[in-house]
């Protein structure tokens, strides 16, 4: 069953149509990849899914509830969490404090990252558990700005998963990572797969084709193709291209 469904999403910025008509769905527990050339509308579509951009037309349903036009904080509360192309961490705070600030029980007690140092032990433990999941438990007390790029990427995912989302949206998670970093991230996503519903925009085709259950190709503000990695590879031009190598 679809956990999230977007129908006929149309977005324009002034004279420019950014999303013409996007239909999309993600099933419970699925990893749904989104790929497409630069400027195709992928990030705008993510912004629509997470409430940062209100569509001019179309609807979004989350677990059967119409959430079209809900602001981003409400969508987040309903269980849609996201990472960004450009990282958004509290640089001066430790990895643990970054995760603490995202824990719902901690956040509900009044949002103040500075309070993290005096937080209750059960919250500290919960934050450590989340960090362990992304292999950052040993770096819990290192400031975010002192972590390596790959570790910061992992911490971003930890912050997103700390919110215990129903859907995790990742915007180009491998961006800027070397091959080693991509491999570690693949392992991490593999571990999260099944436990979480994941939607990821990604340019790294080997990453996407090896992990995704389904892939939607967005171009010209529309979904121009959709299918499992093996279905997409059936296309003759795909086989002739670099994409064909990821068979």
């Amino acid at each position: 069953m679809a956990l999230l469904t977007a129908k006929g999403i149309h977005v324009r910025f002034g004279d420019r149509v950014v999303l013409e008509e996007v239909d999309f769905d993600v099933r419970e527990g699925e990893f749904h990849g989104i790929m497409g050339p630069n400027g195709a509308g992928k990030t705008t579509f993510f912004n629509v899914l997470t409430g940062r951009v209100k569509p001019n037309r179309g609807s979004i349903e989350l677990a059967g509830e119409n959430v079209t036009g809900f602001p981003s904080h409400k969508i987040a509360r309903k269980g849609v969490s996201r990472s960004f192309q450009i990282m958004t961490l509290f640089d001066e705070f430790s990895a643990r404090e970054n995760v603490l600030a995202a824990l719902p029980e901690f956040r509900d007690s009044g949002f103040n990252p500075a309070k993290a140092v005096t937080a209750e032990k059960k919250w500290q433990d919960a934050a450590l558990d989340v960090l362990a999941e992304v292999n950052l438990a040993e770096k819990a007390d290192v400031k975010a700005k002192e972590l390596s790029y790959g570790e910061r990427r992992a911490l971003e995912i930890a912050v997103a998963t700390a919110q215990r989302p129903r859907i995790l949206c990742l915007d180009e998670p491998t961006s800027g990572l070397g091959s080693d970093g991509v491999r570690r991230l693949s392992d991490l996503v593999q571990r999260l797969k099944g436990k979480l519903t994941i939607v990821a925009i990604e340019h790294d085709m080997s990453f996407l084709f090896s992990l995704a259950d389904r892939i939607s190709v967005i171009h010209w503000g529309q979904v121009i193709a959709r299918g499992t990695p093996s279905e997409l590879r059936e296309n003759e031009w795909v086989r002739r291209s670099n994409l064909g190598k990821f068979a």
Partner: protein
Amino acid sequence: MAPLIALDGIRKVYTRGTLRRQTTFTLEANFSVDQPGIVGVVGPNGAGKTTLFEMMTGSNEPTSGRVLVGGTDIHKVKYKERDRLAIHYHQSYQVRHFKKLVPSAMLLSSPTERPLVHLFDEPQFNPQDGYIGFMLDFFKRLRDEGKLVFICLHPTATYHLEILSSIASHFMLVSGGKVMQKDSFGALISDERCRSYLGPQMYETASKLA
């Protein structure tokens, strides 16, 4: 039923100078397409392919004549609703903006919600990334949904000709200020103007595909 698109006596003239006006560019078009399909548009740089697309999608006002999309004069429709009739997918960063002389309130609403005509202006076909296959399938899907698709392509590689000959059912050659319809890929490349525009090497490849 009205044709999907009809260009009725379209003429676009660009001039320069104020006292002594000199014509720098003219483009004339007179054609209609009744049925859904995929039309390949070719022509040398500066021949007016983009200007033609701009007039067909209502952003660039013709000097005279009318563009009817599904029977509606697109230049009489509210500016922001014109892409509900015909939509122009521009070459990256090549969007030109034109003066809007008539207030939108005085214009008509679009009778359709989704575009009937889709115009792709030199889409980036890169055989390395595999998107070509998805793009071509998408054009076919639009056609099968009853839409009319125009693809403007400047053939610089063999696979461009391969794409054109395999996907388009009609062709148009924009050259010398005129838009000429061609019923087949063979008819297109046997036109002397197309032949000289392609050059001997590309022409040889094209003739094998025809």
